[in-house]
């Protein structure tokens, strides 16, 4: 009994069964009218010019932070990526050993979520715009570096060797032989990272690092739902415009999407690509000026509470198995929800033409709406805990996965589905058999990658309480327990790295079997 690919895609949705049993006891009495007025406010957002002006200002800050953090991560990623490439080191020095070392070192900044970076930097240098920028740039830079060095090392080196044999100096040979081949991959990944940066900048705002996220959280806590929705709709417009712009450029430059099934020609108009990259420099300077980012201020470290002689006994006494177990459970629940629900919902709405547009909107809201805010909203009606946090995290990632799934459904050949429908199998079964069959493996491979992202991300719903490492970490941070914090970050990083390894293996297995 081996489930066929289209069924495998739906298997994670079985998580709904235990949820259906566990969820009802979590519902507490009140709060439904709050949820009701929240939902109603969606269609009656506040149009007060004062409110809108303040929200727009916040939005500007968020977008600016995202842009600067992203640009910083690209610069950092390009440098570090080149530094951790085996091919580069082998060409320059003859040995690939330093590349391995740097690669290992970079695993640490990558494993730590931008929120943890943000909160740590906040303690270190105080509240300033540069904190959010740096918090995004550091982990994203390490991620870009990894993708870039993987891309670099996967390129054939024959051209490079030919240039070297012809006497070209190493740096010039590297740039000429590998640079052009690298550009499309870097741009594609970079575009995806910009979308992530916007989401992260919003999230950091929720935790007080400025911008629209801060406004959203304040309006939610003061129950000003109309103003909250004004902010959400504005953010949605910006996010959708950004996503549309990036996919337009992807098509124009023929760079591969994040989730490709059909390979087409790759890389066109490379001069235009370089010009666009060059135009980013003055743009970033302007935005930095406008936000008041002052790199020098980052050097004014605040006096740290004494690190010496921490209370290691208390750190050791933390309920580690429960913390780690909670985090893993949260990750598994959220990942299954996100991976399984996207195809399930698509099947459910298949016969109704306009319902797909509804799903598109729901998923866009899921992507843009920071998980901690969903969690706060859920707390109006649910008790805190792992399940509540998993719902919030799952909804957010459902937005990401759902969009990818729908995009790839639209990009695959409709022939098989059309043939099924023509034979009378009905729209749902035609979709299941005719389209999902081909999509299942790449989709699940992406799901494995996403599960790893969710593990990293699980800290952001820590404020719900009792969610494992995430909530303990936020608690230790607010009580300045540096020793605990250090241990928690280390454990988190270890877990994430193990998860990364696991999801890499799963992904390769899925893609090889295809």
């Amino acid at each position, binding site marked *: *009994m081996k*489930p*066929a*690919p*289209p*069924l495998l895609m739906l298997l994670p949705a079985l998580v709904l069964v235990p949820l259906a049993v566990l969820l009802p006891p979590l519902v507490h009495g009140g709060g439904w009218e709050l949820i009701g007025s929240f939902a109603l406010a969606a269609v009656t957002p506040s149009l007060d010019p004062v409110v809108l002006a303040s929200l727009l200002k916040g939005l500007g800050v968020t977008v600016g932070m995202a842009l600067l953090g992203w640009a910083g991560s690209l610069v950092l990623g390009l440098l570090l990526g080149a530094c951790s490439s085996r091919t580069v080191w082998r060409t320059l020095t003859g040995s690939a050993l330093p590349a391995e070392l740097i690669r290992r070192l970079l695993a640490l900044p990558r494993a730590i979520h931008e929120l943890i970076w943000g909160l740590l930097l906040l303690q270190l240098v105080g509240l300033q715009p540069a904190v959010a920028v740096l918090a995004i740039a550091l982990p994203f830079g390490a991620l870009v570096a990894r993708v870039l060095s993987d891309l670099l090392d996967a390129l054939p080196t024959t051209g490079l060797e030919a240039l070297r044999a012809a006497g070209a100096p190493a740096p010039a040979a590297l740039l000429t032989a590998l640079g052009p081949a690298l550009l499309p991959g870097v741009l594609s990944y970079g575009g995806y990272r910009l979308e992530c940066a916007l989401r992260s900048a919003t999230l950091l705002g929720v935790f007080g690092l400025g911008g629209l996220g801060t406004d959203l959280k304040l309006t939610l806590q003061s129950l000003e739902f109309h103003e909250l929705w004004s902010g959400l709709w504005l953010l949605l417009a910006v996010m959708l415009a950004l996503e549309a712009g990036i996919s337009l450029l992807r098509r124009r430059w023929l760079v591969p999407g994040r989730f490709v099934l059909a390979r087409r020609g790759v890389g066109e108009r490379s001069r235009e690509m370089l010009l666009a990259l060059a135009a980013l420099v003055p743009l970033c300077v302007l935005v930095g000026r406008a936000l008041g980012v002052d790199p020098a201020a980052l050097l004014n470290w605040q006096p740290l509470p004494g690190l010496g002689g921490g209370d290691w006994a208390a750190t050791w006494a933390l309920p580690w198995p429960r913390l780690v177990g909670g985090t893993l459970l949260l990750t598994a629940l959220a990942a299954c929800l996100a991976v399984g629900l996207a195809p399930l919902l698509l099947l459910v709405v298949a*016969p109704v033409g306009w319902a797909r547009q509804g799903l598109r909107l729901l998923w866009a809201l899921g992507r843009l709406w920071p998980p901690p805010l969903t969690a706060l909203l859920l707390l109006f009606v649910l008790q805190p805990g792992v399940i509540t946090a998993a719902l919030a995290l799952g909804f957010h990632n459902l937005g990401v996965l759902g969009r990818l799934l729908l995009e790839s459904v639209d990009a695959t050949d409709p*022939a*098989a589905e*059309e*043939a*099924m*429908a*023509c*034979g*009378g*199998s*009905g729209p*749902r*079964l035609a979709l*299941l*058999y*005719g389209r999902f*069959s*081909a999509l*299942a*493996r790449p989709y699940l491979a992406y799901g494995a990658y996403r599960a790893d992202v969710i593990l990293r991300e699980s800290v952001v719903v820590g404020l719900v309480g009792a969610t494992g490492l995430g909530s303990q970490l936020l608690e230790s941070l607010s009580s300045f327990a540096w020793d605990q914090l250090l241990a928690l970050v280390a454990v988190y990083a270890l877990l994430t790295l193990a998860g990364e390894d696991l999801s890499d293996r799963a992904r390769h297995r899925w893609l090889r079997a295809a």
Partner: protein
Amino acid sequence: MAAGPATAVLALRGVRVAGRGRPRLEDVDLSLAPGERVALLGASGAGKSTLLAVANGLLAPAAGTVLWEGQPPARSRRGRRLQQARIGTLWQDLRLIEELTVQQNLNAARLARWGWPRAVLNLLLPLDTEACAAALRAMDLDPALLEQPVTALSGGQRQRVAMARLLRQEPTLLLADEPLASLDPRLAGELLALLLAQAAAPRALLLSLHRPDLLDGFDRAVGLKDGRVLFDGPVGQVNPDLLADLYGGTPPGAAP
């Protein structure tokens, strides 16, 4: 079905399709009796594919009526699905589902009658093994192929599996749009023989064809030109003058 033995399997009356991105049809009348094998001739762009799309229900005509076994398109979703299940289309690219096994592909033809639970079960367990094996044997294929993924099949085997799937749908109307194009002569001959052999009453066959030299096994030929029926009669009456008129001077049998 309420339809009696004399009811036409497919009847088009005064069908008009306004060409939006596809060749148009004007006032087309066409009727297929049970057991009839009809070849559709005409130059590229004459409307053969459009007519077949109307016949298999993918395209609703702008005017005129289409009756399958005497019935207009059913109104209920379920009725429509069952009606579609009785129309079997052999696609030029076969449209097998590459990621599934041969047996799952054969069973995919039963989905209109099965509904959800069995459709999902089919993705988990081998269902209806006997019937699927019989369908393969009817096509001279080894039933041991049932477990194989479709990707493991040869070109000729794929063709026969597609035919087996088509028959497992138990259609009364067999439709095929240029099934022989892009096939080598041996495979083309085999496929045509299979199609003609399956089109015994109560089933009828409508097939579009580029090669008038292959008309032998058919009962009737219908010639389309610029979206209108120019000729409809026994195959014996197809002569070089008629073909010259249909193909506008290009020699019949030439590449499309």
